[in-house]
């Protein structure tokens, strides 16, 4: 009796597991398959995963279109700069939080934690005027500076936690030898913290690569657009070229997908710490 009860549960669980897998993965598989198809085959009835029109033609079309390549270059430049600046500024702040007690520490800390609660749309309204006044509209700087507000808090919180696990004796040893705090931070603490920096850097890259709202409003020229906006523009311009839109989407997802697959452990740890929104 008990045995067959358990068997039943296992069957139900397996069915659920498979249904869940289809629910999660089917849209993604469909995107990939569509990117390989001819436009006329995408809406064939009955639909097929693969058919005789399968080719990489849409990918070639994306790569030979200089404007689409430009979207990728823009996204890499912006995301790359955001990662570097976030790590640099964030590590300095994390060092202060981890190694000093100072008046106002609590206030600064709550300011940093509270950023997550501020809706981006609220910030965007004044940003528009500010960015124009600073003559940064339609530049990489507009995006890099505004992205920092969303990427810094996670970096500071994670790196403070990381530095807190490292003994203060490490920096004291450097200072006894006549080195400065600055030297202790960059010469000793930062090199040991590399794993923490990799995971923070990965998250920061994802956030910057995926950002949509600020990029939509703070850039205007097509050649300044990032990949998410580029994909969105395709929806308007080539409304019928679904194959190319899907190829562009697959290509636009690859950097983040690679990070996800290689750094799964960090990814999951970061996710369950609730630091990052998708």
């Amino acid at each position, binding site marked *: 009796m008990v045995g067959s009860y358990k068997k039943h549960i296992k069957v139900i669980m397996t069915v659920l597991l498979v249904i869940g897998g289809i629910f999660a993965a089917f849209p*993604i598989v469909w995107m990939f398959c569509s990117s390989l198809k001819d436009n006329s085959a995408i809406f064939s009835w009955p639909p097929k995963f693969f058919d005789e029109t399968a080719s990489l033609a849409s990918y070639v079309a994306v790569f030979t279109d200089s404007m689409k390549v430009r979207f990728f270059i823009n996204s890499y430049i912006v995301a790359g700069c955001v990662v570097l600046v976030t790590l640099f500024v964030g590590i300095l702040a994390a060092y202060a939080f981890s*190694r000093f007690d100072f008046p106002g520490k609590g206030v600064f800390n709550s300011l940093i934690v509270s950023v*997550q609660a501020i809706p981006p749309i609220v910030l965007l309204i004044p940003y528009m*005027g500010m960015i124009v006044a600073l003559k940064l509209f339609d530049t990489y700087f507009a995006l890099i500076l505004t992205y920092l*507000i969303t990427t810094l808090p996670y970096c500071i919180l994670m790196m403070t936690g990381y530095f807190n696990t490292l003994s203060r004796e490490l920096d004291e040893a450097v200072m006894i030898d006549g080195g400065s705090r600055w030297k202790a931070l960059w010469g000793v603490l930062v090199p040991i913290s590399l794993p923490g920096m990799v995971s923070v850097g990965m998250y920061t890259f994802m956030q910057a690569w995926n950002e949509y709202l600020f990029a939509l409003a703070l850039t205007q020229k097509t050649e300044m657009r990032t990949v998410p906006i580029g994909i969105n523009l395709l929806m308007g311009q080539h409304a019928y070229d679904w194959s190319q839109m899907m190829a562009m989407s697959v290509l636009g997802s690859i950097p983040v997908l690679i990070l996800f697959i290689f750094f799964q452990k960090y990814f999951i740890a970061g996710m369950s710490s609730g630091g990052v929104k998708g």
Partner: protein
Amino acid sequence: MKLFGKKTAPYRYLLPTLVLMIVFLVVPIIMVIRYSFVDKAVVSPDPQFVGLANYAELFADSSFWNAVSNTIIFVVVSVVAHLVIGMIFAMLLNSKYFTNRTKTIARVVYILPWVFTASVVAILWKLMLQPSGIINYLMSALPQVSRNTEWLSNKDLALAVICFINIWCGYPFYMISILAGLQGISGDLYESAAIDGATLTKSFLHITIPQLKPILISIAMLDFIWTLQSFNVIWMLTGGGPVQSTETLSIYIYKLAFQKVDYSMAGTAATVLLVVCVFIAIFYVRQQKKVRE
């Protein structure tokens, strides 16, 4: 006080962060609140202080209340569905009926929707929801369902579709957090419950749920704040339409600011949204403190 003395050291390390936070966070928030108290903010060189007139106008606007009601539906449906689906998937991934290998592969597959950026999520669902797309093909297997449903341009369906898509791309966050929580519950609790003759339902209600409660409350509140702010997928799929049926607060504010160029009213609505988010955030921080103690 010496500029390079010991006392200023922590502030020197904090300086870049502080400057960024003041310029791009504190000042903009003050600006937005100021917009809400003046007439013709930004567009006029000399905006007049109008007191609470903008708020009176906002609360009298039926479009605002439509946006509020859409947002509440969107947020409540999303958060509840995320919680249920996240819980089911986390329990599957934690079950003793599957091998570790199966569970590892399933976990990767289940997280996938979270990895894709909003514009990819939007475009890929737009493809599937086309009248001659795959969703209608699958639906045509069911009796009495039209083969040509216009999912996104039907004002009675659009909000439900948007909710569904948001559920699809948001549950992995819950699943991972709940899974971490489940793995932290001692097996002894279940064993002694089983010896006492507790059924699976009973041990779920009396062990799993109470043990997970702090995590569930935290993630639901975080998700509540995020969903309240969500803009991207909705903007790309429907732009708030058809006939404002998917217009949430973020979309309403964006349209006021960047289509109607009415920064005063946009600032007013934004301030209302900000206050709500900050209010929930305060509860969230309190909850986090309680968990730590």
